[in-house]
C-alpha cells in the first residue's frame, strides 16, 4: 500500500521524476518492510471491517443465511430506540458524576505526593495504583459483594451508625453511584500517576516564588499548578470521556446495565444487540452513530480546553 501511494505521485509531475522516486523506494525497501506488518494487519482487521460494518448497517443479518438490504431502516429504528439514547445519556451522566471528582482528587493527591513533605511517598503511590492492575471482572464482583443490600459490608458498616440499608444495586441512582465508586477505585491511581509525572516536568520554582510573595497553598494550586497542568488534565479528561461511554466489564459484572437501563452504556448495548440478539446490521448502525457522537464530543473537548492554553 505504501509503495503504490508514493508511486502515484510522479504521474502529476513530468515523467523525469519517476526514476529518482522509484529508486528512493527501492532504496527504502527495509523500512517499508519493517513497518508493513501494521498496515497489513490494519487492512485486514481494521479497514476492511470498518467498511464491512458500514455496509452491514444498511442490512438485516443474523450472521447466517442471506443478507437482506433494508436501506435506512436501521437508522430510522435507531432514532426511536430509547434504550440506545438512554445509554448515550448514561454515558454523559456517568461522565459528570465521576470525572470531575476523580480528576480533582487525582490532581490533589499528586500535588500532595509531589511535595517533599510527605513520608512514605512510594508506599502511598503503590497503594493508590494497585487497583489499576486488578482485572475488572474480579473487581466488579468484589464490589457487588461489598454493596449487597441486606448483608453487604458497606451497609453493615452504615448500620452501626443507624443509617438504613442503601439500595446500592437495586435503585437507578444507587446503581450509578456504585458504578462511579468502582470506576474511581479502578482509575484514580492511574490518573494520579499521570498527573504526578506531569508535575515532575514543571518546576517548583514558580509555586515557591508565589508562596514567598504571600500566596497560600490553595491559591498556588488553583492559579499556578492547574493552569500549568492543563495539557495533562486534558489528556486525562479526554481519556475518561471515551472511557465512560466504553464501560463494559464494570457494567457486565456489577449492575448488568440495570436497574431500568440506568447504567447501560453504548458499548454494552451494541454488544448485546450483536452477540445476544444477533442483530448484526442494527448493531453496526449503532456503532456508527456512536462513533460519530464520540468523535464530535472529543473534538469539542480538545477545542474547548485547547483554546485556553497559552
Amino acid at each position, binding site marked *: 500500500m505504501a509503495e503504490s501511494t508514493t508511486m502515484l505521485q510522479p504521474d502529476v509531475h513530468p515523467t523525469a521524476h519517476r526514476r529518482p522516486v522509484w529508486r528512493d523506494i527501492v532504496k527504502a525497501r527495509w523500512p517499508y518492510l*519493517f513497518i508493513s*506488518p501494521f498496515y497489513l494487519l490494519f487492512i485486514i482487521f481494521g479497514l*476492511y471491517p470498518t467498511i464491512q460494518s458500514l455496509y*452491514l448497517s444498511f442490512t438485516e443479518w443474523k*450472521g447466517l443465511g442471506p443478507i437482506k438490504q433494508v436501506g435506512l431502516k436501521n437508522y430510522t429504528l435507531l432514532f426511536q430506540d430509547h434504550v440506545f439514547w438512554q445509554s448515550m445519556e448514561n454515558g454523559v451522566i456517568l461522565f459528570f458524576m465521576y470525572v470531575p471528582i476523580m480528576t480533582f482528587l487525582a490532581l490533589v493527591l499528586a500535588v500532595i505526593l509531589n511535595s517533599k513533605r510527605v513520608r512514605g511517598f512510594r508506599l502511598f503511590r503503590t497503594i493508590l495504583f494497585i487497583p489499576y*492492575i*486488578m482485572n475488572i471482572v*474480579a*473487581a466488579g464482583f468484589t464490589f457487588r459483594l461489598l454493596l449487597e443490600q441486606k448483608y453487604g459490608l458497606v451497609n453493615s458498616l452504615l448500620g452501626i451508625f443507624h443509617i438504613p440499608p442503601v439500595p446500592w444495586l437495586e435503585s437507578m441512582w444507587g446503581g450509578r453511584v456504585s458504578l462511579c465508586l468502582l470506576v474511581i477505585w479502578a482509575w484514580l491511581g492511574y490518573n494520579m500517576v499521570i498527573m504526578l509525572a506531569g508535575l515532575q516536568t514543571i518546576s517548583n520554582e514558580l509555586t515557591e516564588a508565589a508562596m514567598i510573595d504571600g500566596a497560600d497553598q490553595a491559591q498556588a494550586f488553583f492559579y499556578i499548578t492547574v493552569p500549568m497542568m492543563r495539557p495533562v488534565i486534558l489528556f486525562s479528561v479526554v481519556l475518561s470521556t471515551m472511557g465512560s461511554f466504553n464501560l463494559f466489564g464494570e457494567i457486565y459484572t456489577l449492575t448488568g446495565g440495570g436497574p431500568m437501563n440506568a447504567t447501560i452504556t453504548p458499548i454494552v448495548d451494541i454488544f448485546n444487540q450483536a452477540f445476544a440478539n444477533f442483530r448484526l446490521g442494527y448493531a*453496526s448502525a449503532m456503532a456508527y452513530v456512536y462513533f460519530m457522537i464520540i468523535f464530535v464530543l472529543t473534538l469539542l473537548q480538545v477545542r474547548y480546553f485547547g483554546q485556553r492554553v497559552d
Partner: protein
Amino acid sequence: MFVRRLSRTLGDVVMYALLIGVSIFMLLPFVWMLSTSLKPADEIFALPPIIISAHSSLKAYIYLLQQQVSILVNVRNTFVIAFSATIVRLFFCSLGGYGFAKFKFPGQGWLFGFLLGTMIIPGAITMVPVYIIMRNLKWIDTFWPLIIPGAANAFGIFFMRQYISSVSEEIMDAARIDGAGEFAIFWRIILPVIAPGLTSLGLIFFMGSWNDFMGPLIYLKSPQNFTLPLVIRSMIGPVGRTVYDVQMAASVISLIPLLIIFLIFQRRFLEGITAGAVKG
C-alpha cells in the same frame, strides 16, 4: 511564627487524613476479597461482619483445583495468551518503531499520521466484522483472535519510535560498515539497547492481555479454553446462589501473578504508562 507552624501542622494532618482515607478505600476490596475466599459459607454474610474467620480454610481453593477443568488449566490459558501476545506485539512494534525512527523514506510523514489516526476507530465498529472473519478462519474458540489482530498496534509503534529515536546512530553506522544487514542491526544492536523500553511496553501489553474481558468473552466458548476473567464470570449463579467464596478465590488467583510482576517491575511499569501520556 506560632500561627504559621500551627497551620502547617494542621495542613499535614489534613494531608495524611486524605492519604490514609483514600488508601483504606483502595485496600478494602482486596482485604474483603481475600477474607471472603477463606471464610466458611455461613460466615460470608455474618452480622457483624467477620474479617478474619476463626474457621479460615483453603477449601475454596481446593475446590477450584478439583473442578472438572482445574483452575490451573485456566491459569495456563491466560498465561499462554498473554505471553504470546506480548512477545509478538513487542517484536512487531519495535520493528515498526525502528523503521519510523531510524530511516527516511517517501511518504513517511503521511504513513505515520495515518497510523496515529487509526487509533480513533472504536472497537465497537470493527467488532462484528472481525468476528465474522474469525468465524470464516475457523478461529472461534481458539487463542488466535486474542493474539493476531493486535500483533502490530499503533500505540506500541508510537511508543517504540519515541524510544528508539534516542538511540545513537554511530553504533548502527559502525555495524553497517562491518557489513551487517538492516535486520541484523535491529536484532543484534537495537533490541539489546532498548531492553528497558521493551520491558515497560511489555508489562503494559501483558497486563492488558491478562485482564482482557471482552475479547475472551466473544471468542472463547468451551470451559477448558477459558481465561481467568471468564472463569470468575462463569461462577455467577442465580440470585442468592452465587458461591462467593469460590468466586473470590478465583479472583485472588487471577490477581496474584500480576501483583508479583508489578511489585518487581513497578518502576518500569509506571515509566511505560506515563511516557505515553506526558510526552504524547
